[in-house]
């Protein structure tokens, strides 16, 4: 029987994720990540409408100048992540269109905070040279000092905010 409320044991899921990360290290020589493709999409999109502006912004020009900016490890990794999520959600009976929110939160508040929070994720990932998977997980497992400082900062920022937005989730 498929039970949409039944998830893997978190420790076993953690071991599985660690093995995926280890395979990425050993067989590809790279890590995991999800924020990298976002800027590539932005650079390619902006290049199509305002190429002169892209040329004036070095971080974007640097990406747009590559012969094929989207033929990149992290873009294909993101594609695989979508596919893996799709198969897992479908086979677990969890694929349902909708919005995740607490019972008393309004739809507008939830969707507004989703975009606003996403912007903070994007800025933070740029500042920290990686997101929770690209910096905390990948660098943390290689014992990089910066990644560990980053990881503790994530938890600090999260706990500081949790009470303020409790209406969104509780």
């Amino acid at each position, binding site marked *: 029987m498929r039970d949409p409320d039944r998830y893997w044991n978190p420790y076993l899921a953690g071991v599985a994720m*660690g093995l995926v990360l280890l395979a990425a290290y050993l067989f590809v020589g790279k890590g995991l990540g999800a924020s990298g493709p976002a800027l590539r999409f932005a650079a390619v999109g902006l290049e199509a409408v305002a190429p002169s502006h892209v040329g004036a912004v070095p971080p974007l020009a640097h990406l747009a100048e590559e012969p094929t900016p989207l033929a990149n490890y992290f873009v294909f990794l993101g594609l695989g992540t979508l596919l893996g999520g799709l198969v897992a959600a479908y086979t677990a009976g969890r694929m349902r269109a909708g919005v995740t929110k607490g019972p008393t939160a309004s739809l507008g508040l939830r969707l507004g905070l989703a975009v606003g929070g996403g912007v903070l994720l994007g800025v933070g990932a740029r500042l920290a040279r990686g997101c929770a998977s690209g910096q905390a997980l990948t660098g943390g497992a290689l014992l990089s000092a910066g990644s560990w400082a980053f990881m503790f900062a994530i938890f600090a920022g999260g706990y500081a905010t949790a009470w303020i937005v409790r209406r969104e989730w509780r």
Partner: protein
Amino acid sequence: MTFFPFQLPAANPQVAMVAAVLVGFGFGFVLERAGFGNARKLLGQFYGTDMVMLKVMFTAIVTAILGTVVLAGVGLLDLRALADGVSSETFLWPMIAGGLLIGVGIVASGYCPGTSLVGIASGKLDALLAYAGVVLGQLLWAELEFRGPIARFHRSGAFGHVYLYDLLRVPAPALAAGVVLMAIGAFLFGEKVERMVTKAPAGPGPTARNRVFAGVVAFGAVGLATLLLPVATAARAVPAGRIAPEELARRVLSEPWKVRVLDVRPMDACTKERVPGAECTPPAMLKDLSLADVSPARDLVVVGEGDLAQAPAEIRAYRGRVLVLDRGYEGWRAWALTPPALPGEGAAPSALETYRLRAGIQSALTGVKAAPPPPTPAAGGAPVQRKAGGGGCSG
């Protein structure tokens, strides 16, 4: 010899593409099955009801640490080279600021960039909007990060590649064992918080959890045991890499504080001429440097007379990276101290660039240091004539 990481994908773009999709598939599948596609489940971490983020992320980190440390301990993997290639350098202040922002962003949006992809795959509109926000935020910061004071902050706290085992000056397996103990402590504490917040009684003994705990402790012990292997001593000391004269010239000129050059030729040859900044350390002197105990922050470059197949054992004991200069001092003399051949008509711009660089280095290293030709003494050794008068302040 190390076997990992395999270089196959780098050589073949199709294989690399397929490998990336496969790794991503595993990542997305596990994220979904762990419950990370569900923002409310993930957020249980920050309300104390379900410490799933701590458990999954930290177990994943511990698993990958133990895998790499054990492989490195038996000599199959060069841990530092892997880490230098995969992880980014440390920029402490922007990393802390970015971490705080991401913490706020996770709680506000309910996702981190990776889990939003899985949320999108599960059909969640809020996940799609969160990823759109990520694209927008990345674009916004890319517009700002290179400007004035923001650029200075973006590059502040730069420590290069620095690892916890360098900071604490312990071997990597000892640090890994410490992380295992810390993780188990954090898991037990997290479960206690869950019980306090949800007021649920402790369930029956969670056997899966205990097996995972036993597994990571066992692998942590295996990692520690590799410290005792005689073979591991050689393996832990990173096998010597190679460095070309061109690269060495670049490094001693542009970042001399990151490299230490040891010249192992006989003392008289080295004192006569050497690579700029090199220390003259004939083999007999090496043990006095106690390289096994000094900070491994700088890369060591070994210069022999000709090509050295392997660095001396005292140098291999160094815990940082050891590089052997290609063709030794012969190679250096041929590249840096010999005038380069003039590039022909219509040479490629890159050939011209190489010529300019070599000519510049050659004149800097030979022209400046070479003494001007001695003046030929006048026949008969006439005494130096003093000025009779006129001009000068003594006049």
